[in-house]
């Protein structure tokens, strides 16, 4: 799932898809933690997942707010439209 998320990040040009791919990647990392925690039979893995959840929520909220602004300014959700700065 991590790989799939990465593919999504690299392929899709729509900002919403990019954010969703990010979510997938984070979710995959969380999954890995939970699995690792279950391997050691510790609660730590799940706690980490909680933190990841919090972080994902914060990130998505900021990200979506940014998406709104970007759409407002650039009139597009194309990631590649965001290339005024380069070189």
């Amino acid at each position, binding site marked *: 799932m991590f790989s799939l*998320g990465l593919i999504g990040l690299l392929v899709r040009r729509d900002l919403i898809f990019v954010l969703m791919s990010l979510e997938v990647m*984070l979710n*995959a*990392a969380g999954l890995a933690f939970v699995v690792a925690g279950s*391997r050691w039979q510790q609660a730590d893995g799940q706690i980490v997942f909680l933190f990841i959840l919090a972080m994902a929520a914060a990130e998505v909220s900021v990200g979506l707010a940014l998406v709104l602004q970007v759409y407002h*300014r650039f009139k597009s959700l194309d*990631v590649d439209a965001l290339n005024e700065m380069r070189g």
Partner: protein
Amino acid sequence: MTRADCLSLFPLILIAGTSMLVMVAIAFRRHHTLTAGLTIAGLVIAFMSILTVTPYVPRHVTALLIMDHYALLYMGVIIASALVVAVLSYQYFEQQEGHHEELYVLLLLATLGCMVLVASSHLMSFFLGLEILSISLYAMVAYLKERKQSLEAGMKYLVLAGSSSAFLLFGMALVYADLGTMEFSRVAAASAVTSHLAFLIPGIVLIITGIGFKLAVAPFHLWTPDVYEGAPAPVTAFIATASKTAIFALLLRFFYHSGMHQYRAVYVVFVIIAVASMIAGNLLALWQTNVKRILAYSSIAHFGYMLVAFTAGGNMAVEAVTFYLVAYTVTTLGAFGVVTVLSNSSRDADRLDDYQGLFWRRPLIAGIFTVMLLSLAGIPATMGFLAKFYVLTAGASATKWSLIIILVITSAIGLFYYLRIIVTLYSASPEREASIQPVVLASGFVLALLTALLIWFGVYPAPLLEMIQINAVPSVAELLPSESDKLSRHFGSGGGPFRLTAKLDFGARIEDTTSDHGFEPCYDHTPGSGGGARSSITSTQERTYVERKDLCGRQESLFVLPLAYMRAQDPHATVVIYPLATSCVSRTGS
């Protein structure tokens, strides 16, 4: 959480409290000066509180945080740079349209994140600190949402930092899956006893990816120039200084505590990163015409230099890196400070053209900028020179000659673009008369102070060096008090070659100097133990003392081991003395 725990966390609590206070103040009344004043006051108090908590450290506050001198030293640097950024922001955002009060909340939160980073002793606090920092930064980068560039930079930063966090998390998950622990110090111990470390190193590499992204070292540097360019100048200053300082401090602590950098493969990775950063950073800056981008590339190169010292290892490396970070922070803050005070409400002063003949219009600012650039280039009588010299010495004492040669060549290339800016500063002024906006007294004062610091510590660095040597180095070397209890347990679990971190016992007495022992000290494994360090190994029936005189002539006994047990286990064991924390015993026989 005892009272002492809370006391030792005082700086963190203060910063968090200030951010709340500022938020409440904003809710009641939006007033830029008031908000900035509150923020600055909070930062100043937090800075001073660092001194007051010194008696309560070193102390572990739960497994997540460790408050020691090292953390306090770096917190001081971070809070000071946040203070400078706050002052600069005041001038910068005063000209901008819209609300600027939230920025201070975000700035405080980002500072908090940095402070958590330098104090973290656990992968989780590492992650949380990093994310507090990152999420504040996303909003700060895109803060001027009226500007397309700012938005673009924010979006890029968000997407990339988010994915790098995912990499980081995945790496952590791998490490955790392998070791079952996330504390830095126990990572070393656990990796010593666990037989198969299949996930550990890949996990470490993914963590390096995450850290490398934040430090903007090649090949994870691509975002840097765009974000630097798009972000408001004071925010850029913050990204370039406080956040990177915090992460590098964490890098040092993590790797030197866990001993991971001793692994060949990890070492190779770091060397590649260092070389690539030095080359890419300096080359990319060569013909660049945007000052913020030049500074971005130059920061890539500077972190390459620091990594050279980092790979050298040893006390010297910690000293060199810390000094370099301080020098870099002061210089970069100054440089971005100049950019800030020259910026106006419509755009940042980032084109090289804006600096054409600046000297003839505003000699003082041009002078300050010149000093900053000279320091970045490493010209004597500035901190930059000493820092580079220190790094070179650290590299040389670890005989990393090829790295040093690359460092020297690339800094020679680097000289070119710094001088190019300086030449621009002093060339004939263009015809058009740019409007000159006045410099707010506070930011002028801050800039002058930074310049003075730069030269003062360039000529008279002794107090700073002493502070670094006393505070930074032993703290990294210090291990957890509980570690000695675990020693015997780790010896018990056999199977395969293992590595063991031993407790450092400063000032232990030598009891017997004559007995023969089954250990052979092998010194050539000690990267960074310069010519000055002298080690001797002595052992008694129960314990082995490795005694070593460090460069300052202080005597320290490095570690204490249950010798009899070792001998029973394996008569051909080899003692490998690492000059830092990781005095390891590895069993090579069988």
